[in-house]
């Protein structure tokens, strides 16, 4: 999350492996999305000696090296071992002047999940923003940067916002410049990637008064509901937009009418209730027949977002059915 603030540097205070693991993951998933990038990620490279004698010196030296490169900000993430040996990360970070050094506690053994780490990082970054003049735009909060279809999903949500005459303020956090964080509070509305980000939505609402929509639109029926929610939150009339979207929905079903009546089976079953519902909606809309002997059709790990997400899924189903 923090490495997506492109002009900042993220320091992981811990042994090299903790950083390497994340570096590899980010680099590899970026390649999946056809982008070659080296995440701005640095390790304090704790050795056994540092663990035994205390790691604050290593953190201090690394911060000085990193700050000499003149980043817009520095984010410091902690690891299990430094929290165990009692390194006072906050204190060391507080000794640095001239550049914001933000601590995000991320030691795994202290509880929480991957998502809570993401939420903590978002809240820590949001702490860098103050009150700002409104600009009527919409923030996108908590995009899943590791998700294969992250850009396609963003494009779909942008399309829907544009139908209501709304534009995007900042993507928080994806490919963000540090100085753009200051405009976080300018938005009239926040759209969260999914409900697991509600703690972040609540934080932003409490701090800046910005209301939020708790999730991206899911499945064939989600986009109309999404338009109505957004319009309601912004006090905009959505009749024309909803009409257009309903027409698009019908067009999609018409385009895939050749699938009607086909026998399908889901292997594996959608892993979450949301994905399950989205699949069921499609089954009903296309009048498919779910039977154990039906052709297996792929189920996405995350539910399809918007009409374009559904179209991509239906293309895969068509290929599976005609194979």
């Amino acid at each position, binding site marked *: 999350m923090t490495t997506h603030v492109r002009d900042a540097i993220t320091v992981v205070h811990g042994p090299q492996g903790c950083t390497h693991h994340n570096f590899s993951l980010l680099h590899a998933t970026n390649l999946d999305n056809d982008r070659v990038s080296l995440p701005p990620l640095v390790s304090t490279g704790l050795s056994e000696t540092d663990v035994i004698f205390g790691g604050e010196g290593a953190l201090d030296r690394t911060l000085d090296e990193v700050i000499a490169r003149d980043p817009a900000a520095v984010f410091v993430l902690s690891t299990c071992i430094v*929290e*165990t040996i*009692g390194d*006072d990360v906050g*204190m060391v970070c507080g000794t640095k002047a001239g550049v914001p050094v933000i601590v995000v506690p991320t030691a795994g053994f202290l509880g929480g999940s991957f998502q809570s780490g993401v939420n903590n990082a978002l809240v820590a970054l949001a702490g860098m923003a103050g009150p700002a003049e409104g600009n009527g735009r919409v923030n996108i909060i908590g995009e899943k940067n590791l998700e294969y279809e992250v850009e396609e999903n963003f494009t779909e949500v942008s399309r829907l916002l544009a139908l209501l005459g709304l534009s995007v303020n900042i993507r928080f956090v994806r490919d963000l410049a540090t100085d753009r964080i200051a405009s976080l509070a300018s938005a009239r509305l926040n759209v969260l990637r999914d409900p697991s980000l509600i703690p972040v939505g609540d934080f932003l609402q409490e701090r800046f008064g910005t209301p939020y929509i708790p999730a991206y639109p899911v499945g064939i029926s989600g986009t109309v509901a999404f338009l109505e929610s957004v319009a309601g939150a912004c006090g905009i009339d959505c009749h024309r937009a909803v009409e257009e979207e309903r027409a698009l929905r019908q067009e999609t079903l018409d385009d895939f009418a050749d699938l009607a009546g086909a026998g399908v089976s889901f292997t594996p079953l959608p892993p979450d209730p949301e994905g399950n519902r989205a699949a069921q909606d499609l089954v009903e809309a296309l009048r498919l027949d779910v039977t154990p002997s039906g052709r297996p059709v792929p189920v996405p790990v995350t539910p399809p977002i918007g009409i374009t997400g559904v179209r991509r899924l239906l293309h895969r189903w068509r290929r599976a059915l005609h194979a």
Partner: protein
Amino acid sequence: MKQIALYGKGGIGKSTTSANLSAALSLAGHDILQIGCDPKRDSTRMLMAGRLIPTVMDQVRERGAAGVTPADVVYTGFNGVRCVEAGGPEPGVGCAGRGIIATFQLLEKFGTLTGDVIVYDVLGDVVCGGFAMPMREGYAQEVYLVTSGELMSLYAANNICKAIERLSARPKSRCRLAGVICNAKSQPKEEELVAEFARRVNSHLVQFIPRDRVVQLAELNRKTVIEYEPASAQAQVYRDLATRVMENTRLTIPSPLEIDDLEALAIEFM
């Protein structure tokens, strides 16, 4: 709110001193919180009529961090002194230092760290980062070293000076050495030796506590001397300590000695 920490070699009488200090301060009209930061968890026993109160870490282990309430960990003892024991693992396993950090975070969350004086009773061998927690920003600003005239306890006190010196060097740090308390073993010239030690590490002897049988008697009766024999000379010593602690403004950054200098000092007073 005054926050003080007592550090000193194991067995030197830190907990006895802390408990009596807390009792004396409480009788002088102050609202006192004593926090035992030693896995032995017996710092507050004499304030709790001999009871070993449940420790913070045991409660967290049994109920989960979310299931612990302030009432599970804060107990009220002699004259209204509130008592907390951090607890921690048994000898030879786990990480006691991390236990101290976790305890502090929980007490912060509960809003427990209040009162006129908070007394942190911390084990003597500050062997890792966790045991320096009471000296971190926001907690104890005054550290008292409890020592006798024996070389080994002076050595431990000197070592703690190194920790205080290093921590004091941090910007924004307000942790200072407040003084040395001599808990006597009845060596000859013990008071002079400890006073000189205090001077050489850039501090001063705040109180000399003579060895007195009444301390053991009180302990066997599960009370502080203040409670057990309030009219005794020893009780007055603790009351004097309490007065001096409240009035003390001599807070310094210690200058720890080299082992050779320490031994030379001990020989001087042989």
